[in-house]
């Protein structure tokens, strides 16, 4: 069975104003077939914005790893990569 990709999009203030709101439109830029294989949820804040080790906002957590400076294109790319890596 396919392992689902766990995606958590930060919807805290700092992330939301710096591009996080665009990420919530994931239905528009991620392939629906891939979306079906993901668990996508919002998270109020995972305090990634307080340090800079993961880049800057907006942040997304994919399978427990935090990615910064997220854009729709980047998110789409990473999700596809992670999905294929898991289901090789």
């Amino acid at each position: 069975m396919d392992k689902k990709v766990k995606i958590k999009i930060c919807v805290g203030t700092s992330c939301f104003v710096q591009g996080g709101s665009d990420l919530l439109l994931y239905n528009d830029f991620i392939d629906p077939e891939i979306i079906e294989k993901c668990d996508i949820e919002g998270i109020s804040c995972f305090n990634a914005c307080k340090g800079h080790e993961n880049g800057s906002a907006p942040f997304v957590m994919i399978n427990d790893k935090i990615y910064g400076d997220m854009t729709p294109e980047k998110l789409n790319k990473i999700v596809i990569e992670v999905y294929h890596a898991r289901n090789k």
Partner: protein
Amino acid sequence: MKDIFIDIDYSQIYKFGQKIGGDVFLQKRNPERNQIVAVLSDGLGSGVKANVLASLTANMAKKLSFSPMDLKHSANIIMDTLPVCKERKISYSTFSIADIRYNALNSNIRVNFLEYDNPHALFFRDSTNIDWEGDVTILDREKAFKKEEIVHNVFNLRVGDRIIIISDGVTQAGLGASRSLGWRLNGVKQYISDILKDSPSISSRALTKQIVNKALSLDGLASKDDITCCCIYIRKPRRTLIVTGPPFLKESDDLLCQKIKDFKGKKIISGGTTALIVSKHLNKKIKVDLSTWSKDVPPSSTMDGMDLVTEGMLTLSKVVYTLEKKIPLVELANDAVKKYIELILDSDQVHFLVGTKINEAHQDPSIPVEIGIRRTLIERLRKTLEENYLKETSIEYI
């Protein structure tokens, strides 16, 4: 905070095709003198001219009620001042004035009630209608073109009492159409009794809305006159707690959570970090609801025991903006702001628990929009709630 709340609200529908009404309702609270004045006036005719007459009457009535002058004298002044209609050669507008006084704890509520030519106000104790007759005074003005009778009464109100003031647009609804003589006062009375039997604690806002909507439907959805209804309702206050911002000291987190737990009423948490603290201490999971968000408002979340959990500054800014501009609820997108405002408007007393820690992430100069300072925002929210929506508010910093 006080244990009794005086809930005053009104609903209004203008005459079909009019953009402005000839019925005017005004209310003003004067907490320093423990006084509230509510006035409903109906000007002669409809549209702009009627609105001018009614506004003038209502404003004078409001001002004069706050002066030490007796109400009869006030009524005389109002009627002497009204301009004369060019077509009808008379000056005329009706009014009902409720001058409400209470003592510091809101018990002993005394209403000095005066009405001139409006439909007789209705008095309900719980869901029972009680007929009342006031003292009738005849004005004997020189310029009078008809017999001018002013009805005066004093009501001593207790919890569960309502005074409902309506304009003739309500009693005459359906005139000549669905009801040959209109809805009439008895019909309105019966309708309100039925509503109150079903929902005894209905708010003034919801009750008046139902009444005007019923009148509108009797008029075949095209109102023949301005339809206005207002209600003064004495009840136990509904309370809401708004928690925003993490405490200044980390050690106070426990205290914050204890305060939230102990609060009796609706609870809103405004802020991601604050929600995380509460979630951790009370061991409750936050679930973000990705179906409710809009371009400038992040999604709201749910947490067991809380009525609403939202992001902080963006949501608050939008809530404040919407309330200050008095944007109607129906025009709002289905997002956190709408839920927020619905909760606040449904309560009488709003208590703010404000954490004073500064959010480091918001100090980043690359953030493209202005994120207000929490305290300033909360002060603006309090101001608009008190002044525009007549809510009682209190604040506590932590």
